[in-house]
């Protein structure tokens, strides 16, 4: 099974605008950023959360705390993985009790990563609200989960793969769509059950 490049659907400038808009929406929806904390889901949710923090700081003058979450320990498919990525630490350097938590990830697909992230966050306390911000929503949900802030809605087929690239992890910014070249022998091209759609 190999992947072939199909299209670039978001360029760097469009990505920047989408993140700026999400940052504004977070401030607007929560009437400021008092009590707001951002938690990026590893891997690409983390630099996205940091960028949102920087944008919010530039127009609100306040620094919103950022934490990072590794959901490996909360997955529902441990034995289905052939290769285990290293379980990295979860670092949430602020109390989440009664706070407005915004989870940040790159792609929303089946919703299973977000389900795991919700369980993980709840183990750290009792937030007042949990909201979800994603750069790309590609549909095909398997759980009743939706995002509060979406950079771009991208209708996809299950045979496609959405790849978010970020300067911090991949040299440049942009979102590409790739397609599985070979026939999938098992009839389910669910690559994104692993790692939230693009990671």
């Amino acid at each position, binding site marked *: *099974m190999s*992947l072939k490049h199909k299209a670039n659907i978001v360029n760097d400038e469009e990505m920047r605008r989408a993140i700026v808009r999400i940052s504004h929406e977070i401030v607007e929806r929560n009437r400021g950023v008092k009590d707001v904390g951002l938690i990026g889901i590893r891997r690409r949710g983390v630099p996205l959360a940091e960028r949102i923090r920087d944008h919010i700081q530039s127009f609100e003058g306040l620094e919103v705390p950022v934490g990072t979450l*590794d959901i*490996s*320990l*909360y*997955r529902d498919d*441990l*034995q*289905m*993985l*052939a*290769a*285990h*990525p*290293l*379980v*990295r*630490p*979860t*670092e949430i350097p602020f109390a989440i009790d009664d706070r407005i938590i915004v989870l940040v990830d790159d792609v929303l697909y089946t919703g299973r990563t977000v389900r795991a992230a919700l*369980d993980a966050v709840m*183990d*750290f*306390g009792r937030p007042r609200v949990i909201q979800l911000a994603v750069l790309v929503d590609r549909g095909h949900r398997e759980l009743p989960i939706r995002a509060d802030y979406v950079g771009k809605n991208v209708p996809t087929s299950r045979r496609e*793969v959405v790849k978010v690239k970020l300067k911090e992890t991949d040299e440049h910014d942009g979102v590409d769509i790739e397609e599985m070249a070979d026939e999938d022998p*098992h009839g*389910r091209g*669910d*690559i994104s*059950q*692993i*790692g939230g759609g693009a*990671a």
Partner: protein
Amino acid sequence: MTFRRQHLLGLEDLSRNEILHILDTARSFRQVLERPVKKVPSLRGVTVCLAFYEASTRTRLSFELAAKRLSADTMNFSSSGSSVQKGETLLDTIKNIQAMKVDMVVIRHSSSGAAHYLSRNVDAHVINAGDGFHEHPTQGLLDLYTMRDRFGNLDGVRVAIVGDIAHSRVARSNIWGLVKLGAEVTLVGPQTLMPAEIAKTGVKRVTNCLEEALETCQVVNVLRLQLERMTSGYLPSLREYARIFGVDTRRMEKAADKIMVMHPGPMNRGVEIDPAVADGPNSVILDQVTNGVAVRMAVLFLVWGGAPASEMGSEIALHK
């Protein structure tokens, strides 16, 4: 780096990278132990049998806690008070336990090779919790973890292991692990308690001068002197052993300033280690115990996840 082992039987057959992968994973679990909710759902629905054919406090409790912190169910088996006393063989006992649908077996046994034997004959993940004089891999790993916590990288770190090397599975697991991670190992002990095969392990030097080892090493790992050795003629007397190989305050005065003092427990206070040293500022003995839980969580987690993935699973992961 991927970890694909279905069992953990010893450190001898693990690669340097596999050992580092376990230790790095353990670091994440160490943080879980500091959280308000010290439990994660990773092994929900998995049943772990703790089969201890030999006395144990720390290792059994540590494995049990580790399994519970991963949301696994645990069942305990100890040979005393069981059908083992009626003559049931190891394999029969475990096959019966397995018939109760157990997924993982943690075994401690007085025969070297017991864990290997089980891993070949039962359909469950096997973790060696100490087999005879052979290995005690999770003790080795938690010792490595504790040293790495201090030094970061063990390349070139000078470690002395003191005591009854020949009969010590803790020493063997430590030696394999330390040599693979690049540490310089010195073995200290009486000639009668040095194994013949040490030359093969990559140990740097062997000495019977404890003072010299303490002056030059950054870590001293003091082994428990198994008192039953006295009766078999390896040592003249306990008092003589304590005088020549006991880590006491007088010897510590000449030791390197920040030397790290380790002991796998249980201690014979006043024999291989003086109480003032065991409870002193250089001792990390209780840190070892805390780290042991995190290391065993990592081992249970990785060995469980190391199950053969379905074909689909491997394709998924290839394109992660």
